[in-house]
């Protein structure tokens, strides 16, 4: 009885390992020289996704500061 592998494992352990690693290396790694990283990828921009994650992190910090010092922030 063959148990189908989970899709992720199947892809990684199949012939496409290097394609997925290629995508990861080129789009997720590497020196970011400028803010101008622009790509077209079926309407989804992976690099901007990373940028927006960074913005989310800031958002999580800032409200905390504001909660702790509401008087000073309101001016």
């Amino acid at each position, binding site marked *: 009885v063959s148990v189908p592998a989970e899709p*992720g494992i199947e892809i990684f352990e199949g012939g496409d390992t290097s394609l997925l690693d*290629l995508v990861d*290396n080129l*789009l997720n*790694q590497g020196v970011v*020289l400028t803010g101008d990283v622009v790509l077209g990828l079926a309407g989804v921009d992976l690099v901007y996704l990373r940028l927006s994650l960074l913005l989310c992190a800031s958002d999580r910090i800032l409200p905390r500061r504001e909660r702790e010092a509401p008087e000073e922030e309101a001016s």
Partner: protein
Amino acid sequence: VRCGGILAAVGEMAAAPRADAPLLQAHDAVVRRLTAGAGAVLPARFGSLAAGEAELAELLGSRAPLFAEALERVRGCVQMTLRVFGTAAAPADLDSLPEDPMAGPGTRFLAARRREHERRTSLPEIDSLRPALRPLLRAERVERQTSGRLIGTAFHLLPRAAEEDYRAALEATGGHLPGGYRLAWSGPWPPYAFATVAGMELAP
């Protein structure tokens, strides 16, 4: 574009590149050729654009010593990518450490951030491999996943000459580690995951 001791390989683009497989493979092939020809190469993020040579020279020149340092780090090295699949181990004892009752909210916040950072950048699932790998590695970077069967990825930077021993160490595992973990590795790659220069990273 030359800027001091650094040489940037650039091409003119009329429009933003599409991130499709043939273009990514072509880009990787160019990076590999450059890596073979030069002693040390720092790949830029795919799709990085500058307005012109002057802007690029300015960007490089403003951080020339950092680039030199980063280039030295990857000189003569290749990257191997090791992915670990399975069910993640319970978080290390980091989470169960008692909090200092005297700590203020700021300290508690920073301590929580530190624990979270340590959790995201550690991969205890491959600890049994470390004695074999440690002498071969020049650097390691870990990216842990928060969901799915892929637990995390270890990017390993090693001297080109150590690649064979690295492969042998992984092949000796048969792709499995104690704890039911499965391994998949690829490489050698140009040092994409180690192309980091202080102040120019978006990823933590």
